[in-house]
C-alpha cells in the first residue's frame, strides 16, 4: 500500500516537473518569436524609408545615378531575404550601399543643409539602431532559449516535444565588423 502511494507520488512529481519545464520552453520560444517579429517590423520600416530618401536626394545627386540604383537594388534584394543568416547578409549589403550614398551626399552642401534630408538621415540612423537593438534582444533571448533546450535535464523534454534550435544573428559581412566609416551623427559640437 505504502509502496503504491510512494510510486504514485514520485510519478506525479515527475509529471509536474515535466510540465514546468515544458511551459518554460514554450514561454521562451514565444518570446524568441516575438523578438524575431520585432526585427521584421524594423526591417520593413527601413525598406519603406529608403525610396523616400532616394527621391529626396535624386534631384541634387543627378550624377550619382549608379549609387542610387545600387541602393534600390540592395533594398529589393534585402526584401526577398529568408531566415536570419540570409537577411543578415543582404541587410549588410544594403547598409553598405546606404553608407556610400551618405558619404557622397556630404559633397552636396544643399543636401546636408536640407531639413528633409537631415530628418530622413535621423530616421534611417534610428531605424538601423532599432534593427541592431532588436537583433541584440533576439540574440539574448534566443541564447537563453538554446541553453534551456540543451542543458540537462530539460533537454529530456525539449527533444521529444520538438523544440528546435534557434538561429542566431551573426555579422556576415567582413566590412560590418570594422568600425563604420560613415559618421551619421548630425549633432554640431
Amino acid at each position: 500500500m505504502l509502496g503504491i502511494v510512494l510510486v504514485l507520488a514520485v510519478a506525479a512529481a515527475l509529471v509536474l516537473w515535466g510540465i514546468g519545464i515544458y511551459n518554460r520552453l514554450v514561454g521562451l520560444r514565444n518570446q524568441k518569436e516575438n523578438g524575431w517579429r520585432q526585427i521584421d517590423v524594423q526591417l520593413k520600416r527601413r525598406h519603406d524609408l529608403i525610396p523616400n530618401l532616394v527621391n529626396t536626394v535624386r534631384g541634387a545627386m543627378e550624377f550619382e545615378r549608379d549609387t542610387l540604383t545600387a541602393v534600390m537594388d540592395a533594398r529589393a534584394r534585402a526584401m526577398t531575404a529568408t531566415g536570419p543568416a540570409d537577411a543578415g547578409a543582404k541587410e549588410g549589403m544594403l547598409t553598405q550601399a546606404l553608407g556610400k550614398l551618405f558619404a557622397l551626399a556630404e559633397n552636396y552642401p544643399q543636401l546636408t543643409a536640407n531639413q528633409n534630408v537631415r530628418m530622413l538621415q535621423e530616421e534611417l540612423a534610428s531605424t538601423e539602431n532599432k534593427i541592431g537593438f532588436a537583433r541584440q534582444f533576439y540574440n539574448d533571448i534566443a541564447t537563453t532559449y538554446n541553453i534551456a533546450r540543451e542543458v540537462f535535464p530539460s533537454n529530456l523534454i525539449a527533444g521529444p516535444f520538438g523544440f528546435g534550435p534557434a538561429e542566431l544573428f551573426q555579422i556576415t559581412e567582413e566590412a560590418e565588423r570594422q568600425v563604420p566609416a560613415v559618421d551619421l551623427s548630425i549633432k554640431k559640437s
Partner: protein
Amino acid sequence: MNLLEQQAANRRRTWLVMAVFVLLVAGLGLGLDLVVFAGGDRVVPVGTLAALGVSGGQAWWGFRHGDRSVLRSTAAVPLHDRLTAAGSEETRHQLRQLDNVVDEMAIAAGLPKPAVWVIPDADPNAFATGRDPEHASIAVTEGLLGTLSRDELQGVVAHEMAHIRNYDIRLMTVVAALAGAILLLADWSARSMRWGGRGRRRDADSGGGGLAVVFVAIWLVAIVLAPVLGRLLALAVSRRREYLADATGAQLTRNPMALANALEKIESAVAPTPAIKRGSAHLCIADPLGLQIDQREGTWANLWATHPPMARRIAALRTMAYAPPAG
C-alpha cells in the same frame, strides 16, 4: 545581480517598505486611540481603523496617480504636444531624435515604449516614473536635449529604461505614496492631539497605567520621525539603484562610455534644475539640487544625498568600457 534577481530584490523591498508602513500607521492609530479616545468602554479601535483606512486610501491613490503628480510638478509636456508647438527646425529635430532614442531603448529592453515628456528647463536632467513597464514615463529637460550628442542621450535614456525594467520606478512610486500618506497622517494626528489634549490628561490622572504613557511617548516620537524615516528610506534605496541602473543601461546600449560622457556633461552643468522640486529629486539621473557631493559615501552629509558621487559612477562605467577614453 541579473535582471530577475534585481526584480526579486525590488519586490522584497517593496513588501518590506509596505510592512514597515502598516506598522507605523497602526502605531499612530493606536496612539490616537489611547490618547484621544481614551476613557470610554469601546472595544473597537476607531483611531487605528480610521488611520489604516485613510492612509491606505491615500497610498493607493498615490500609487495609481503618483507619476502624474510628479510630472505635473515639473511642468512636463508630452513630447507630441511639444513637437506640434515647436517653432524651430532644430527643436523639431531634437524632439524627433529623443522620440527615436526612446523607441530604440524600449526595443533593446524588450519593453513597451514609455510615454515621453519634455521639461521646459535649461539644466540637463532626466527621470523615469510610473508603476510598472506598461504604465511608465520618461521625462527629459530641454537642456539635456541641447547639451548631449545622440549617443549620450541614448545612454541617459537607457539608464532611465533600466529603472523601468528593474521595477525601481514601482518601488519609488510606492515609497513616495506611503511617505505622503504618513505625512498626512502625522499631520492629522498632531491636530487631533491638540483638541484631544484634555482627554489625555484626564486619562493620565485616573491612573490609566504606565503602559499608556509609554505608548504615548513612542507615538509622539513616531509622529516626529515618520516623515523623516520615509524620506531616508527613499534616499537610501535610490542611491543603490543608481549604480545598478548605470550598469543595466550600459548593457542595453553596449556603450558605457556614452553614458559616462553624458554624466560628465551633466555634472559640469552644476546649476540646479529649478523645474524639479526637492520631492522628486531621488528620481533624477543627477541630483537636481545641484549640490556638490562629497567623494566619500556613508558620511552624515551624504545620508541626505539622493545620488552617489558622480565621479564614482563615471569611474565604474569607464571600467565597463573595453577601451580607455580617447583623448
